């Protein structure tokens, strides 16, 4: 076997460095989830796929919360809560992201394991 040339070493280092970076550092863009867990105070828990567009009605403490899934994103469309904070959260799609309606006791969390153990919202 011949001794590696300077070019061999350089190419090796570049490939190894690129591999380490790709494996160790996740992208800044938050990874999109494939499913969502919908919970309500009425003790129902549903797991739904985000790949299928749909409208979901969930019974909460005050009434019905309407949840829309479209294009891999989830949003609260309507809620009987007084201030509509949950509607103001807009659309979520990233793993670990969630929308909560405290007054109506309904939550939706995008499931999946990202490269992180927790996200500071």
């Amino acid at each position, binding site marked *: *076997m*011949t001794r*590696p040339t300077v070019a*061999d070493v350089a*190419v*090796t280092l570049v*490939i*190894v460095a690129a*591999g*380490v970076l790709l*494996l160790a*550092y*996740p992208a*800044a*863009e*938050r990874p999109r989830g494939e499913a969502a*867990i919908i*919970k309500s*105070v009425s003790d129902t828990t549903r797991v739904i796929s985000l790949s299928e567009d749909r409208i979901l009605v969930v019974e909460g403490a005050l009434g019905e919360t309407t949840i829309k899934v479209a294009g891999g994103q989830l949003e609260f469309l309507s809620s009987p809560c007084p*201030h*509509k*904070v949950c*509607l*103001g959260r*807009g659309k979520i*799609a*990233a793993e670990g992201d*969630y929308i*909560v309606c*405290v007054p109506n*006791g309904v*939550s939706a*969390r995008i499931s999946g394991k*990202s*490269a*992180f*153990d*927790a*996200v*500071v*919202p």
Partner: protein
Amino acid sequence: MRRYNYAIPLVIVVILLVFTLTRDRGKGVPEHYDSRLMMDTFVEITLWGEGSVSGEAGLDSAFAVIAGIGALLGDGLMTASDWGALQAPEADSIMARSLAAWRRTEGLFDPTIGSVSRLWEFYPDATPPDPDSVETALAWVGLDRYLAPGGVPGGDGSDFVLDIGGVAKGYALDLAAAAIVRLGFPAALLNAGGDIKIIGEKPGGGPWRIAVRHPRKRDAFLGCLELRPAAVATSGDYERSFTYRGERYHHILDPRDGMPSRASVSVTVVGSDAGLCDALATGLFVMGGGEALALAEALPGIEAVFVFGEGIDVVTTSGIAGSFERME
């Protein structure tokens, strides 16, 4: 003719093998997760490994502790008279943390801001309170006056209002974490709307990786903290806010004028006590700038990541600089 050099592919294969093996190390450890709405917050708890009870029972115990603090303190706004009537050691512990943060932040975290806090509501169509009512309420803000001899008001219907919701939430996590440890679970991660408590070593080894959301780009991360067991709390101007006549109003109020503080964009505090971290994050946010950075550097056992200005300038304390990876 030159022979093929096997060293290059060999090195690559070995490195990939090491990564693959170390990535799978934690996969056999039992993991138990649940989320519940409590203390007006989305609370998530994950337990790893085996304890003296089942994972489900461990989660129930931890959530029960948090629910107990929630039941004791309601929405976290409480008159000083009602607070004084509380006969619970938990109330003393929460006040001890509030006092510590108040002293350390030179009053910029002030638990007596409740009279102002209750004037503000943060939802999409909210409007700021009348300036005169804020001015009137400010007369009741100032823990120094509450602590002074004869400073506890009452009798005339007026009263201090404590806002200890944030500290109580962190403190509830501390208590729940202690319960989990007592039950023998080796590792756990508790997350109550951004107040985080980490117990034990991460299954599979390596540091716990906590991502910090970008304050202006919802679907991006600002960076990642690599931590050993710790508590983490963030105060950010993007968390609860509304826009009125083109100006954004958020929930971190300056006890000096009763208005949303413009001193920082976000402050993430890392320490060991989640209740104290929550209060310090608020105080350091209101302080802002070099003064806040210098204070965080001087506080023992406390590290912080600051975001200042719309240019999103990120500054960390020196003790955590090597553990924070900027991602954007």
